[in-house]
């Protein structure tokens, strides 16, 4: 639903933009229009770079090269490098530290959802001694349907754990490809196994839970 709303709004915005720029449209071709629009988003201190990229585009004749150049420049205009180092938009200082240190990223990705994922797993597997207060935390008043917290935990686990696994696997793969043993990074390896087991469990639980609905069992929820 949200994608449909975004799509409709994008179409409307494009329509309005085209009407607004009707007069000047004929002068610019696609790559120029794209780059000009993206350049307007550059921060004030970087605007001259937008002009520089447009001037450079003007020199290119081949349509494919023009599109390639414009797309690359548009990406720069949307995510310009931050003064002092990292990428301005998504590579903030926090992100920079995380991406610089994969083990930290893996640990954070693993530890953040871990307690709640454990609780949710206990609920799913119906381990009796914990059921009482867990049901209160993670289910609606009827004690059956999952509430918002449970959904957040579930989505968080589904998103964060694979990211942590991939980031954690990177140094292992690098070492193996360099000809070293897989045991060169024992902590990463252990973490990767645990993460993989966790993800597999979650995915399996989803499949087992939803399978009756996929095969068309009536009144399936």
């Amino acid at each position, binding site marked *: 639903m949200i994608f449909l709303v975004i799509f409709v709004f994008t179409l409307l915005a494009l329509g309005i933009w085209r009407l607004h720029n009707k007069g000047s449209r004929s002068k610019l071709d696609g790559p120029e229009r794209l780059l000009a629009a993206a350049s307007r988003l550059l921060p004030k201190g970087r605007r001259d770079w937008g*002009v*520089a990229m447009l001037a*450079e585009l*003007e020199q*290119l004749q081949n349509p494919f090269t023009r599109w390639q150049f414009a797309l690359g420049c548009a990406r720069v205009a949307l995510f310009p490098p931050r003064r*002092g180092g990292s990428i301005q938009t998504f590579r903030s200082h926090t992100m920079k530290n995380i991406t610089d240190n994969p083990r930290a990223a893996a640990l954070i990705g693993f530890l953040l959802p871990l307690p709640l994922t454990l609780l949710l797993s206990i609920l799913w597997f119906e381990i009796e001694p914990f059921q009482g207060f867990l049901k209160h935390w993670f289910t609606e008043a009827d004690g059956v349907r999952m509430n918002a917290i449970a959904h957040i935990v579930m989505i968080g686990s589904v998103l964060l754990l694979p990211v942590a696994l991939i980031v954690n696997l990177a140094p292992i793969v690098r070492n193996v*490809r360099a000809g070293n043993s897989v045991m060169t990074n024992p902590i990463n390896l252990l973490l990767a196994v645990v993460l993989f087991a966790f993800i597999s469990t979650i995915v399996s639980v989803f499949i087992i839970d939803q399978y009756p609905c996929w095969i068309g069992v009536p009144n399936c929820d």
Partner: protein
Amino acid sequence: MKRSRQPSEQTAAVLIALAEEPGAWRYGYDLSQQTGLKAGSMYPILMRLADRGLLETTWERDVPAGRPPRHLYRLTGQGLELAAELAAPQSRAAKAKRARLRPRTEGA
């Protein structure tokens, strides 16, 4: 605590390309052709180099009518020093060591 980092291979390529003709002003696309870097990689590198005072920029003069002036680039003294340092044999050895550790880059 701030770590001092070696420039990336792409940044080093740009620095070395610019250092080949230290006095000459170069265009972005021209540099992109020489180094094999796409515009999306080239311009952030140029921006960062300019931010750090390693790159001097100016606008083209005597431009024919109907064509916008292009942005031109050349290394500052500091930039030339860094480029020379990167081109030194020790750096090349370090780069070769990095390449050995990452065989995926071989043959690319």
